[in-house]
């Protein structure tokens, strides 16, 4: 009887230990499964993130290539219109000079024409080169280049340009300065081409360690949401540059209310 009792107690102990061990094993399995599935999920979401990033980069690359092609087309057009056609005239005139039966009066006339045309061609080529890379930016920095840009726009006499620049020299690296300059150039271009504005405002100022750039016009404006859907090359070019600059930008516009753009720039560590 006593032995039987003991036997039962023994079984109880073994049972208890076995149940506890079974619980531990179940817990271990549960934790391992939890780890396995979390891992799967995390890796999946990271993969998705990476794919999204790649798609975005692809898009940027595509627009960059398109912009490049457009730019080439424009340069080709400029060269063709401003230089090739005029050089043709020079060549024709020079040809006429080589004819034997030609009066000195005519010679003089042709020579003046050649002089005039070559002068024009020189001026045009200088302008094209200037458009491609403004020498002021390279030599005197962003502030001088922006000032010059303002003056050039003002010289057309169709706009009132309000330019208020404050920029500590070498605040941004040379590459970044070029991007900022291009953004402003594109903004001016858009205003000139489409906005029918009369007043343009460009302002840069320091706020803490940030450089703030404001640009606005009083033109006819546009609906930002519809414009975003049908991104023109100019706008996406600006956005790409903003992304490269690691800057933040806001664009406010609505029909008949002009446009206002704000850019916040940091010197950052990613420049060379």
């Amino acid at each position: 009887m006593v032995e039987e009792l003991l036997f039962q107690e023994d079984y109880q102990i073994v049972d208890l230990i076995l149940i506890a061990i079974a619980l531990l094993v179940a817990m271990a399995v549960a934790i391992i499964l939890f780890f396995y599935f979390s891992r799967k999920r995390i890796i999946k979401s990271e993969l998705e993130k990476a794919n999204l990033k790649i798609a975005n980069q692809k898009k940027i690359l595509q627009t960059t290539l398109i912009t490049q092609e457009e730019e080439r087309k424009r340069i080709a057009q400029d060269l063709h219109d401003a230089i090739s056609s005029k050089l043709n005239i020079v060549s024709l005139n020079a040809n006429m000079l080589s004819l034997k039966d030609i009066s000195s009066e005519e010679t003089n006339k042709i020579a003046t024409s050649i002089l005039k045309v070559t002068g024009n061609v020189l001026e045009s080529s200088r302008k094209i080169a200037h458009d491609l890379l403004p020498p002021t930016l390279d030599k005197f920095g962003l502030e001088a280049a922006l000032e010059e840009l303002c003056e050039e726009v003002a010289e057309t006499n169709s706009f009132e340009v309000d330019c208020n620049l404050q920029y500590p020299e070498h605040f941004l690296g040379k590459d970044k300065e070029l991007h900022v300059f291009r953004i402003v150039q594109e903004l001016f271009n858009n205003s000139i081409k489409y906005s029918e504005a009369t007043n343009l405002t460009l302002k840069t100022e320091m706020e803490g360690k940030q450089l703030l750039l404001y640009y606005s016009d009083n033109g006819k404006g546009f609906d930002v949401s519809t414009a975003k859907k049908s991104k023109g090359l100019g706008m996406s070019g600006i956005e790409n540059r903003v992304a490269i600059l690691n800057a933040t930008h806001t664009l406010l516009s609505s029909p008949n209310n002009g446009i206002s753009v704000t850019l916040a720039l940091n010197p950052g560590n990613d420049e060379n």
Partner: protein
Amino acid sequence: MDTLFDILSDLAIAFCVLNALLYIFWLKENNKAFKIFAVYLVVIAVIQLNASYLKLIIPINNNLFLFHFYYILQFIFLTFFYFELLKQKWMYVVLGIVLGIITFQFIETPAMFFRYNPLGVTITQGIIVIYSVLFFYKYLHETNEFLIINIGLFFYLLSSILIFASGNLVFNMELITEYGYHLLLNLNNVLYLGLQFLIFVTWWKNYYSKKTIK
């Protein structure tokens, strides 16, 4: 039934020795964590062989003192192993404290050398289990060659804590029948075989194929 478990037990020991040999053979071209783990496997294999040998020549259970070597050395080597993977300096502090506690136990009751030490086993295995959980957490979103080994260690150490912790109970034959004793022992053998199998799988997947490609 017993013969099946005997075979499993022998298989576990054979696997243990095989793994130790394989890891030693692949020692040269692998990192520090791998080397530490290889040494751990060798030490464990030596202890296992020693225990089996003692059992063979003197059939009475007197190889219990080897068990102290087993869990203390396991704790030391696995701490170094996980330190290589987790790089947390406080792990050394934990190592020092735990070794201190065990040393104190031995000074206090030297007779414990011939008994189970449930507290020591529970603490050392529990801490290694915590390390393996930290390892899981750290490598949630990246891969590591030791993931499978970590699963094995986590599973075996967590499950076997109770088997070892109830060791004195089991050892005391008056409290428990031989049937219960063998049941626990065999359960441990099966779990241990699982761990050795996963260690072997790691070697097969990560190292064996690498070497043959070369």
